[in-house]
C-alpha cells in the first residue's frame, strides 16, 4: 500500500454544527482500486464526512487532497469534476423521466438520448448492471433505482464512488448482485467507499475498513485480518456481546389469530391475500419478505389502521374470550381493554410527532386518561426521563424535539414508550432499520424482555440473520400471500430467501 499514492486524502478535517462536533481532526486515505468500508455507530459522523467530500458541506478546518494535489470542493459540481460521485441513501431521481433522461439531467453537453442510451448500455455491460435505459423511474423497483443512481455517477466519469448504506433497501439476492458490480469496478481501477451497518457485508466486500467513533477517526484495518467482534468493539469503544438471546417460549397461548385476511389498497391493488397465522404469548413471530410485500398492511390491519376487505383478526384474552379487531380504530381497540403496542415503520411520520419534545410524545397514546380537560404533564415527563435514563437515549433534554435526535435515539424513545404500557401484544416494523449495532442490540434485548414477560411479539424484519437468531417462528410473505411458516430454529437463510421470492406452489414444483 505504501508505494501507491492515495486517490483521495483527507487531512485533519473538522466540521461543527453549532456546538455539536460532527467530525474532528479526521485523516483518511483512499487508494486506487480499493473498496473501503466506513464503519461507525449512528451519529459517528460518517455521512457528514462523505458530504464534505462530495461538496454538500464545507469543512470548518482541514484539507482535502485529490491525487496528491490540494483541492477545494465547494459544491457537488466541484466534486463531480474531480470524479467523485456519491450515491445517497435517499434517491434523487425524477419519477416521470426515464433512466437515460435522469442520467443526463443537468449535464452541460447537448442532449442526445439515443447516443446516451448507447453509452449507458456500454457502462452496464462493462460492470454487469442490468437496466433498461428507456424505462421510467416510477416503474422501477428500489434496486433498479439504485442502479440508475450508480450509473449516473459512472456516466459522469466518476473515479471514486461513495455509497451511503446502499444495502439497507435491498434483498439478499440484490445485495449480492450489487457487490458483484462493485468488484467489477474495483477491477477497473475505481475506488469505492461504502457505508454500511451490516458487518457481514463489510467482511464480504471491502478490502479495508476505517472506523469512526464520535466524529473521530479511530483506526483502519485490512479486512482480511478483521473479524466481526473486533470491528464492533472498535466501533463502540468497549467490548460488546454479539449473541442474540433466544429463550424458550414459556407457556405460549394463542393471543392474535388472523384468519383469511385480505386487503386491497386505495387503488384497488391486492396487498394481502388470504393470510392466516397465529401469534402466541411469550413468543416472537418473525415476518420475512421483500419490502412492500404486505408487511405494513398486515401490522396496520392488526393495529386498526388499515381498511380490511375480508377475513378476521381475533384477540384472545387470558380467559379465552375472542374479540374481533377488524372494523375498530386504535381508540376502540384500546377501549376493549386490549393493550396493543405498535412500533410502526415510519417512526417520525406515524409513531412520533417530529416537532414535539420527548415528553409531549410520551402522552401520544395515553393523553386521554382521566376526566380533566387538561393533559397530565407530569407523568409523561417522568416517563420520558426514565426512558432517557434506562435506554441511554442521547438527548440534550426531555423537551428536545424528537426530529433533532439521531435515528437510534428516536427508535429508543418510540420503543420505550410502546413497552411502557405493559402491552400484551407488541407489533414492530423494521425496529432496527438504520440503527447501529449497539442500538440494535439494545432493541433486541428490549424485545426479548417483552417476550419473557409473556407478550406476543410480531417482528417484521429485513435482516435474515437476525430473524433467524431472534424469532421462534418465521412467517414468510411473498406478494401479499403466505409462502411459508418456518421454525426459526430449524430453517436457514437460503430457505427463507427462496420463499421470499417464490410462492409455495412454485417452490414445490421446482
Amino acid at each position: 500500500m505504501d508505494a501507491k499514492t492515495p486517490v483521495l486524502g483527507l487531512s485533519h478535517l473538522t466540521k461543527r454544527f453549532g456546538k455539536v462536533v460532527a467530525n474532528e481532526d479526521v485523516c483518511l486515505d483512499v487508494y486506487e482500486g480499493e473498496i473501503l468500508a466506513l464503519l461507525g455507530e449512528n451519529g459517528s459522523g460518517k455521512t457528514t464526512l462523505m458530504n464534505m467530500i462530495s461538496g454538500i458541506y464545507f469543512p470548518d478546518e482541514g484539507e482535502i487532497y485529490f491525487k496528491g494535489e490540494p483541492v477545494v470542493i465547494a459544491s457537488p459540481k466541484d466534486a463531480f469534476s474531480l470524479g467523485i460521485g456519491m450515491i445517497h441513501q435517499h434517491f434523487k431521481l425524477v419519477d416521470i423521466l426515464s433512466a437515460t433522461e435522469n442520467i443526463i439531467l443537468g449535464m452541460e453537453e447537448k442532449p442526445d438520448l439515443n447516443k446516451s442510451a448507447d453509452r449507458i448500455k456500454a457502462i452496464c455491460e462493462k460492470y454487469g448492471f442490468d437496466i433498461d435505459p428507456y424505462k421510467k423511474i416510477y416503474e422501477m423497483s428500489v434496486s433498479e433505482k439504485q442502479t440508475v443512481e450508480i450509473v449516473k455517477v459512472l456516466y459522469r466519469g466518476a473515479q471514486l464512488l461513495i455509497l451511503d448504506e446502499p444495502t439497507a433497501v435491498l434483498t439478499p439476492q440484490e445485495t449480492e448482485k450489487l457487490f458483484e458490480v462493485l468488484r467489477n469496478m474495483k477491477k477497473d481501477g475505481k475506488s469505492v467507499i461504502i457505508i454500511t451497518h451490516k458487518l457481514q457485508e463489510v467482511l464480504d466486500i471491502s478490502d479495508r475498513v476505517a472506523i469512526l467513533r464520535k466524529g473521530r477517526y479511530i483506526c483502519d484495518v485490512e479486512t482480511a485480518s478483521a473479524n466481526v467482534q473486533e470491528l464492533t468493539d472498535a466501533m463502540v469503544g468497549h467490548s460488546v456481546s454479539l449473541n442474540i438471546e433466544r429463550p424458550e417460549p414459556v407457556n405460549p397461548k394463542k393471543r392474535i389469530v388472523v384468519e383469511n385476511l385480505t386487503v386491497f389498497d386505495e387503488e384497488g391493488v391486492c396487498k394481502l391475500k388470504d393470510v392466516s397465522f397465529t401469534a402466541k404469548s411469550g413468543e416472537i413471530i418473525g415476518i420475512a419478505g421483500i419490502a412492500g410485500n404486505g408487511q405494513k398492511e398486515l401490522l396496520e390491519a392488526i393495529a386498526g389502521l388499515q381498511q380490511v376487505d375480508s377475513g378476521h383478526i381475533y384477540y384472545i384474552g387470558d380467559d379465552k374470550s375472542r374479540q374481533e379487531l377488524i372494523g375498530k380504530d386504535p381508540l376502540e381497540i384500546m377501549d376493549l381493554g386490549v393493550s396493543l403496542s405498535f412500533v410502526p415503520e415510519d417512526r417520525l411520520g406515524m409513531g412520533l410527532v417530529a416537532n414535539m419534545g420527548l415528553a409531549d410524545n410520551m402522552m401520544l397514546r395515553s393523553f386521554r386518561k382521566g376526566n380533566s380537560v387538561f393533559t397530565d404533564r407530569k407523568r409523561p415527563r417522568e416517563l420520558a426521563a426514565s426512558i432517557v435514563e434506562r435506554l441511554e437515549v442521547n438527548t440534550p433534554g426531555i423537551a428536545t424535539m424528537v426530529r433533532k435526535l439521531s435515528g437510534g435515539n428516536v427508535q429508543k424513545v418510540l420503543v420505550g414508550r410502546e413497552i411502557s404500557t405493559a402491552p400484551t401484544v407488541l407489533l414492530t416494523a423494521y425496529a432496527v432499520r438504520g440503527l447501529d449495532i449497539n442500538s440494535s442490540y439494545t432493541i433486541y434485548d428490549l424485545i426479548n424482555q417483552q417476550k419473557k414477560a409473556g407478550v406476543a411479539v410480531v417482528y417484521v424484519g429485513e435482516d435474515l440473520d437476525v430473524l433467524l437468531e431472534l424469532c421462534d417462528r418465521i412467517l414468510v410473505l411473498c406478494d401479499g400471500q403466505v409462502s411459508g411458516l418456518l421454525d426459526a430454529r430449524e430453517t436457514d437463510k437460503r430457505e427463507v430467501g427462496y420463499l421470499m421470492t417464490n410462492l409455495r406452489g412454485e417452490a414445490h414444483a421446482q
Partner: protein
Amino acid sequence: MHNKAPRFYIARRGDILWYKAWGIRAIAIALALLLCGFITMAATGLDPIKVYVTMLDGNFGTSRRFWMLLQNMAILLCVSLALAPAFRMHFWNLGGDGQSLMGALGAAACMICIGDRIPNVLLIIIMIAVSISCGIIWAVIPAYFKARFGTNETLFTLMMNYVATQLVAFFVIIWEVPKGSGKIGIINQSTQAGWFPQIGTNKYLLNIIIVLFITVFIFIYMRYSKHGYELAVVGESEATARYAGIKINRVIIRTMALSGAICGITGLLLVGGTDHTLTTTIVAGRGFTGVMVAWLAKFNPFVMIATTFLLVFLERGSAEITTIFGLNQSFGDIITGIILFFILSSDFFLNYKITKTKTQKEAA
C-alpha cells in the same frame, strides 16, 4: 483544478441564547429604521427623525390616540387569536374576515330587529349568542367539506369572505337609514339598545379586557388542554393522529368552530362595542393581517400581543405621517414594508450563522 475557497459559508446554528436572539432582532429594527431614514430623505427631503417622532406622536401623542391604538390592537389580536389554533392544526383559515363580518352582521341584525322590544341585558345576551353562531357557521362549512370531501380549505375560506361581504351589502340596503343613503348609520342612536356598557368613562376598555381574557384562554387551550394537544398532533401528521386514535374529522370541525366563534366575537365587539353600525368594510382586512400576526408570533398568544402592537403601530404611524406631511398614502406602506421585511429576515440569522472561511494556512 484550483478553485478558490468560498470566502463565507452558511451553517445551521444550534440553540441560540435569548439575549443574542433579541440582539439580532434589535439590530434588524435599527437597520430598518436607518434604511427608512435614507429613503425618506432621498424621496421626500424630510428629516427622518421628525418623521419617526411623528409616527410616535400618531400613536402616543394624546390619550385618545393611545386608546385608539389599544382598541385597534384588541380587535386585530382577537381575529389573530381565532386563527392561531386553526393554523397550528395546519388548517389555513383565510376566512377570518368573512367569519368576523358574519359575527358583525348577526349582532347588527339583533340590534335592528329586536333592539327596541326587549330589555337591554337580554338583547346583549342574544347578540352574543347570535354573533358567535354566525361565526361558527361560516367557519364550520369549509371545515366540514375539508373533513368529509378533502376540499382545499384555503380557497374555500377565501371564497366565503366574498359571500359574507355580499350578504352584508344586501342587508345594508334593506336596513339603510335614511332610505336611499346606502348606509345604516348609527344603530339605535337614541335608545342605545344593544350598545355595550362602558367601564368608567372609557368606551374601549371593555373590548380590551374581553380580548385579554380570550388571549389567556387560547394560550391555556393550546398549551395545556387535551383538545389543544390533539389539534397539534393533527397538524403535524395525520398518520400519527390516526395512530394515536385521534378522530381527525372531529378535531378539524371542533377547532374551526372555535376559530369561527372567536371571529364572531370580533364582529360583535366591533358592532356592539365601538362602531354601533354595520358596513361591508367594518373588519378592514384584519382577517388577513391576523395571519401575519399569528405567524410572526409562531402562534404564541402572548407574543401575538407584541406582533399586533408592531403592526398597528406601523399602520397608525404611517397614517399620521401621510396626513401631517401631506405625503402619498403609499409612502407609509413603503416604510411598513421595509420594517417588516427586516424583522422577518432576522429569523434567518436566528437559525443560521455565516462564518468566515479559515484560509488553508490558518486551518493547518
